[in-house]
């Protein structure tokens, strides 16, 4: 039960369906209008019904002004890390420091292989992700005059020039559930981004935090360097209920405040393509959670 004291951020988790491309853009703009801090998109480059997430991120960056953008999470196996690092830095520069790098090890290996990607075991994929983070941070380290060399098992970079540096410190957030990934987060990442629906219970958050904190400490890092994040879904209803996130905005606020204070979660991404739900989340829930959490922290 830890509160890491992070400022709270509220975001959206928007489906990048390509059937009506401009609708996705409109929902993203609605998220910005609702005052949300983040618009995030899943990335399944083998899914023909989705817009390519990278292209979408670039496009919505040009069509929004304030909101931060991220993959939730980008599919590393189909996005070579050295190029990804420069692409991320470029988008951060173009958008005025509004890009964050949500990254995943990949999971649907048949589909990845069908796209020409390399099939890895889950364990190998974690190691590959670890190497990729080294590549990415190495590319961003523009002040370093030494050519970048990463001699990994999965990724090799041999004397690449470094840069550009992003406009702001781009957070590397990992979508993760299992201990190996959690330990990697503790060692190298800036955020832990699981989806509530994939957790067995809230205990998983507390347990995951403990693993991350221990790995961070082991790597000489402050556990507070890692943001705890959560993709959430739910329904806004007039009547309150005893279920998580199924009720009026006030009930949502109380439940999310509890997640922040007791489980350390600081970034909440609402999975919804409904502008009205995003408006309720941004305009009613977010301020109420902030107020509850600030009051509790001040005590």
């Amino acid at each position, binding site marked *: 039960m830890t509160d890491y004291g992070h400022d709270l951020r509220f975001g959206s988790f928007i489906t990048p*369906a390509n*059937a*009506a491309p401009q*609708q996705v853009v409109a929902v993203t703009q609605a998220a910005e209008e609702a005052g949300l801090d983040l618009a995030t998109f899943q990335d399944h480059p083998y899914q023909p019904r989705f817009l390519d997430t990278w292209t979408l991120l670039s496009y919505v960056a040009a069509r929004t002004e304030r909101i931060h953008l991220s993959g939730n999470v980008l599919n590393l196996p189909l996005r070579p890390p050295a190029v990804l690092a420069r692409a991320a830095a470029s988008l951060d520069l173009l958008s005025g420091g509004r890009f964050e790098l949500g990254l995943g090890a990949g999971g649907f290996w048949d589909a990845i292989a069908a796209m020409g990607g390399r099939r890895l075991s889950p364990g190998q994929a974690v190691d590959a992700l670890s190497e990729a983070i080294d590549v990415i941070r190495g590319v961003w380290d523009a002040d370093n005059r030494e050519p970048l060399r990463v001699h990994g098992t999965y990724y090799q970079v041999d004397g690449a020039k470094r840069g550009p540096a992003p406009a702001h410190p781009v957070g590397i957030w990992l979508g993760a559930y299992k201990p190996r990934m959690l330990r990697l987060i503790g060692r190298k990442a800036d955020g832990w981004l699981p989806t509530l629906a994939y957790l067995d219970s809230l205990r998983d958050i507390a347990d995951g935090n403990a693993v991350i904190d221990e790995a961070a400490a082991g790597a000489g890092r402050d556990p507070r360097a890692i943001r705890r994040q959560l993709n959430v879904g739910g329904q806004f209803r007039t009547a309150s209920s005893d279920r998580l996130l199924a009720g009026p905005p006030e009930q949502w606020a109380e439940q999310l405040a509890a997640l922040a204070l007791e489980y350390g979660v600081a970034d909440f991404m609402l999975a919804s393509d409904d502008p009205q739900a995003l408006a309720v989340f941004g305009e009613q829930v977010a301020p109420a959670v902030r107020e509850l959490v600030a009051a509790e922290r001040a005590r």
Partner: protein
Amino acid sequence: MSGAPDLAGRVADGWSVALTGLAPDARRAGLAAVDDGARTAGRDPREVHRLATIGGPVSADTLEALAGEGFGVLVLATADPDEVRAFAGLVPEVRARVAAARAQAGVRVGTVRSAAVRARRRPGIDYDAIPASLADRAVEPGDAQYGGVRSNYLRGGSPGLVLRPRTTAEVVDALAYVRGQDVPLGVRSGGHGVSGRSTNDGGIVIDLGALNSIEVLDEATRRVRIGPGARWGEVARALHPHGWAITSGDYGGVGVGGLATAGGIGFMAREHGLTIDHVRAVEMVLADGSVVHADETRHPDLFWGVRGAGSALGIVTAFEFEADEVGLLGFAQLTLDASDTAGLLQAYGEVVEAAPRDVTAFLILGPPRRGQPAVARIMATVDSDDPDTIIDRLQPLADIGPLLDQQVVLTPYPGIIALPDPGPHQGQGEPATRSGLVEHITPEFAQAAERFLRSGATYFFQFRSVGGAVADVPPEATAYASRSANFSAVASAAAGAAWTRRGTRWPGTSAGSTGASRPTAVPAGCSTRTRPRRCGGCAR
């Protein structure tokens, strides 16, 4: 593709070459290699574009010469805005010179479709004669976009050509072209037509989807101008911020063009009439290509006909509507046990006819599922934001049979007109639909309807209330004549169902249909195969 010009000729859509440091001979050899590569692969060399990247500064003479060699795309390599501006300044002159040279040499301008695409062309259509204004957006069977435009909502289609004009002038061009082609023509706005005439097999479709603007002309008189390609869900959302709505259908994907030329029996029909009753003027293109504006004073006969039989008269390119002020509405979905189908239907008819005009209801029957009672679903709108009034109005409807489920919400109009499903229409096959207008749901009609339903002949049998404001408009005022009906009945079946053949009697209509010309049969205009002359309210 740069480099290997021969490879570009064989497989690519363009050959891109940087001219800096390239000798003219090498450049010409490259162009020739593209041609040879294309011919080797059985392609027309014109399928392959030629792109040249040149270092500045350049002159109009240089550009004209390169265009003459076959470079259709000329790109300046520079990071200097002044050089870009100077280059752009040359463009009009270069275009004019090239156009003149081509005209003199008799060169046809346009993109040549690949041999693979040309192989899928349909007979009877002169593809080379498609007007330049429409050629770029035209879609033919071999094109990648074809899957997205071939079908409409309910039916599959295989047109030989889909033209997609963006302006009235382009509609005129399209009609001029189509007049010379000896194939069927379909006109499509939203593609929700029930008849299937908005797609076809081997013919041409003029798709008006791009004429979809929604524009307020006058706040005081609530006058709005709407293109035929707009969808009613979009219209509902665009008018809502003004506190207005136009009664349309029950589904937001339906197009403005088809509905506003036919009738438009919607969730506010008894209170606000048909959609066509809100049309104040139209702009349309007639078969001879003339553009006319019709309203009560200009071309009044045409204006009469376009409201009910518009599709037989021309292509409407813009509608002017007078919207209504509409606030929150009560919207109910009731599910009732319809074991006593005839009894329920008759009670429904009586309750609806007795209800004040602020109530409009749709009742849908499906065939009973095995082991379960037949159910009726009612969707009813009450034009009131007062919960007590809403409940008062709905109670009699809820009492017509055993109530299994109910849901009532207070919602603005867009809340009941869903947005269209995104993406192309995926209709398949040839579903059959018949509709007719019914004065009263008499016991005989109700019993016939029950027998019809139990025979399994239809999977969707709907009874919408009309009457009320619909009947305020005199029958002779518009081409939608059957104003005295209280109900519109629609039945759908799978392809080929015997009862849907032309001339078959509407079940039990002897006691109540109001088809103006043939009171005991399905109104002629509602056949799926005939033209909808004076089609009284048929859902097309």
